[in-house]
Structure formats: C-alpha cells, structure tokens
C-alpha cells in the first residue's frame, strides 16, 4: 500500500509540475489541480497509513493508537480540498477573462 501511495503522489506531482511550466493556461490549471491532489494525498499519508482503523470514537468509548487512526490529517485534508477547489474555480475565471482580453490561451497573453 505504501508503495502504491508513494508512486501515486510521485506521478501526480511530477505531472503537475511539468504541466505548471507549460505555456498554455489550460495546462497550468490542470497542473495546479494535479499538484493539489498530490498534496492532499501527502497530507493524508502524514497521518500514517492504517487499514480498518476509524478516526472517530464510539460514544463513551476510549481511543488509542492501536485501534484508531489519527483524525487530524483527515480534517486538514478536508479543509485543503475545499480551499483548493475554490482557488481552482477562481483561477478558471481569470483564465477565461485572459482568453477574452487577449484572444489567446498563452500565459503571457501573446504567442
């Protein structure tokens, strides 16, 4: 599982960074999205990988690291997803505005 997750984060980051450095705005926004997926998986991984361990306590129960997983990274991921989603939407609007003004999808507004 560790290998799959690590490879997944690696591939997402590499593709994201490559696309981020491309000259088209559409490539940049896809690159940023891939990068944010990689970051979210990475935050999740920082809570250590566990199978069959819930992050929540039963009412009245006591928790421990043997039976439960760390809930904080999951809460962080949720916040990061929401913020990342909003930022992508905002960037999309700016991208369209730039396309409208310059007539090209080059990041500098000219070929």
């Amino acid at each position, binding site marked *: 599982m560790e290998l799959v997750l690590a490879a997944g984060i690696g591939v997402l980051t590499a593709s994201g960074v490559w696309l981020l450095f491309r000259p088209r705005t559409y490539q940049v926004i896809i690159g940023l999205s891939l990068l944010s997926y990689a970051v979210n998986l990475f935050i999740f991984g920082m809570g250590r990988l566990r199978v069959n361990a819930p992050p929540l306590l039963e009412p009245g129960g006591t928790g421990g690291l043997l039976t439960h997983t760390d809930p904080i990274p999951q809460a962080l991921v949720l916040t990061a997803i929401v913020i990342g989603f909003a930022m992508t939407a905002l960037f999309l609007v*700016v991208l369209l505005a730039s396309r409208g003004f310059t007539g090209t999808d080059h990041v500098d507004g000219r070929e």
Partner: protein
Amino acid sequence: MNGLHHLIVLPILLPLVTAAVLIPVDERNRTTKGVIGFVSTMLVFLAGVVLMRAAATSQDGASVYLLGNWPAPFGIVLVLDRLSALMLVLTSVLALATQAFSMSKWHRMGHHFHSLFQLMLAGLNGAFLTGDLFNLFVFFEMMLAASYGLLLHGSGPLRVKAGLHYIAVNLAASSLFLIGVSMIYGATGTLNMADLALRIGTIGPESRMLMEAGAALLGIAFLVKAGMWPLGFWLPAAYSAATPPVAAIFAILTKVGVYILLRLSLLLFGSDAGNSAGFGQPVLLYGGLLTIGFGAIGVLASQAMGRLAGYCVLVSSGTLMAAIGLGNGAVIGGALFYLVSSTLTICAFFLLIELVERARDAGADVLAVTMEAYGDIDENEEEKEEGVAVPGTMAVLGLCFSACAILLSGLPPLSGFLAKFAMLHGLFNPGSFGGAAPVSGAEWTYTALLILSGLAAMVAMNRVGIRTFWTSIEGTIPRVFLIEIAPVVMLLAVCAFLSLQAGSAMRYMDATAKALSEPQNYIGRVMSAPRAGPTGGE
C-alpha cells in the same frame, strides 16, 4: 475573562461581518459601502490601539484566546503579544488610508471592492493573531483569495495578465505551504506553534530530518510571499499593474511573509531547539542580502514610478530578511522600527504615484485603457467627484514626494534614517543581547548594502522627481482632491510622528525583540492558558 480579553477576536470578526453585510448592498451605493467599511476599519484600529497598550503594559507579554474554549495544544488559539499588536495597528493604519483614497473614484472601477477589502483585512489580522500553523494557512488563503480579487479590480488586459501570474505563483506556493505543514505534523504530532517549540528540542534524529525538510518547504512558501530573490520575480509586475489603493495595501502583504519568518524562526529555532537551533538563518541572511542588491539595481533601472515602488518593496523585505538572518536581538529591534516606517512610506508612495502621474501622458494612457475596459457607465459621474480640489497642488505633491524620497533613502531627519541607524547601532553594539563578538564579513556586507540601497533609492527618486516636477513638458497641473491627498499626508505624518516619538517607539520595539528572543514566556502563556467558565465541569 473580562471584555478586554474578548477584544482579541474583534480584528478578525468585525471585518468578516462587515464584508458579509456589504455584499448584498447595491453597487450604486458605493459611497455608503465605503463609509461602512471605513467605520469598521476605524473600530478595528481603535481595538488594535487598546490591545497594543495592553500588550505594552502587561508584564507577562502574551495574552491567549482559546477559540471554542478548547485547551491549548488541542484547540486553536489566538495569541496577542507585542509583535502581533504592532502588526494589527500598522495594518489598520494602512487600511484607513487606502480606503479613504479609494473612495475618490477607484472603488467605482469594479464590483465589491469594499467587501474584498474587508475580507483581506480579516485574513491579515487572523494571520497576525493565530498561534496555530494550520489556522495560519487558512487565514493566509483568505487573505490571498481576497487579494486576487483586489488585484483584478478594475480589470483590463494588463491586470488580468498580472493577476494570472500572481495567482499561479501563489497557488504553487500554497501547495508548498501545505506539504511543509503536514511534514511538520508528521514529525512532531502538533500544529500549535508553542507546543511545537517545546517538542522540537526533544525529537529523535529520524524525525528531525523530516521536520527540518518541512520547515524548509514552509519557509520557501513564506519567502515567495516576502519576495526573496530569486523567488520575488513576480512582485514588481503584479504591484505596478494593480490599482493604486490596492498596490498600497499590498505593501503589507509582503510583510506578512516577513512577520511569519520572524515569528517562527525565533520561536521554533531559538537556542532551545537542540540540534536545529538557528536553522535556516544563513538562507535568510544571504537571500536577504541578494534581495537588497537585486532590489537596489531594480530601483536604479526602473523607468516607471510603479515599478520603482515595486522594487522598493523588495529592498524593504530584503533588509528585514537579512536582519532576521543575522540572529542578533538588537538588530531585530531596529528592524521592527524599519518595518513600520518602510511599510508606511511605500504605501504613501504607491498612492502618491497616481496623483503625480495624472498630469503626465503615460498616466493618462493607463487610465484611458482601464476606463475603456470597464465601459462608459460612469462617464457622467466622473465630473462630480467628491471632495474639494487642493490649492497649490504641485507644491503639496512636491512636498509629499520629497518626504517619500527622504524616507525611502533613509536620510535624516525622518524615521527612515532612524530605522537604519537603529539597525546599524544594534549591529555594532549587541548590548543586552549577548557579548560583543567581532563584526563578521556578512555584517559588514549588510552595513554596506543598507547604505548603498539608500543611495540607489535617492538617485532614482531624484531622477524621477526632476523629470516630473521640474522638466515636465506638458506643464498640466493634475486635479487632486482632498480625499486623495489627505491619506498620503496622513501616512507621512505618522512617519514624522514616529521620528518625533522615536524614543518611546524604540523602547516598544526593543521590548518586542527581547520578548521574541526569549520565547519561553510565550510558550508558557499558551500552554497554561486558563479555560473560561467553571473549570472541570462538562
């Protein structure tokens, strides 16, 4: 738990509520919106002053506000100490000036200017107050999201292009921020800054590497924001494309990066950090020196005043980063004074540029382009500008410009000189902050660059000033209204006031620097913060 204690949360809540209230108000009532926003900022300013007085007089330094009444390392805390109180007051002074300025005409160039402005203030104040790394990320994003909107305010191809680059750079930096925060959490198991400072000294070598890698990534995110060379390439283009009131309030955005670098490097990597003590200081020092050099060259090379001011921002943050990197408490005291003085000056300069350039063809071109992009809706409104035209316009503008030049180049008698003098004095007389070690090569370089960057600013300002005020070919006198020049005069008057009251101001800054270099007090206050209400009763 008195009323004063709850005042800590006001600088975040009030702008948030004001922004929400302003959104449904119709855009035709812009002046009403502006006045509501201005009153709200005024209240935040008064709260900031009260908090600053409380922070200055209390002996224990920091007061802690537990959000949701959760105990300290688990819940999110707001911490008010001398440094954050200082930043709160500085932010609201800049905000008051720029808001008043925007009400002359700039807030008409797009929608929701005042709501975005209030949201940015909420994000800024939150970033200054929070004592938690992830909460810092949230406030940081809030501030950035509002700043994207503000940068695009007024629209037009130039601004959209600059905005596109600005957003892309900042989104990439935010990814680094998140990676850094999660690595620090993975290594230490906490996100509370005070708790983190306690744990850093004791973590094992295998976690230490992870923690340092995380801190380095986090540092890069803040250095992008603060504009360190070579990460600050985006800054002059973005700042010179923004509308004047927006560029002026952006002067504080780079200082957020500087503030967090200062806070975290002294809190986390002080002498108690074990093997990590002093982590990242060489990067800050040499990066800061390079930034000053790059900024000074940029200042000399700039033709347009907007770019000149953008490079002044770089010089200012380079000076501050290098001062943090020197790791000398006495320099930090002077650097804080410099932070206040240079931010006020640059803000005033950004506002002044537009007034001065109004007479020139270049400025008129930009204005025409933006007007064209926005449409002709407001054409009939254009004639009935609020306020009174200022008599003796050129004399007033010239005086303000000379004051800016003196402040930027650090000549006596104004506060720019006092700030640089205080930093150099601290450099050569460490005094109460440790023994008198011999002055190193880096410190000599810092001294030289500090003085040379002042010279560069003076040369550039002289050139621009002569071209604008003495050899102007058009000879047209710009129409300047009271509401536009008053904020500039107010900001410069604050600088003059700082120069007159330099003694008490420096005492405050030195006490702040001393509290920062002895973080045990801060940590103790946060970790032992009492919960409100009947304790123990659930």
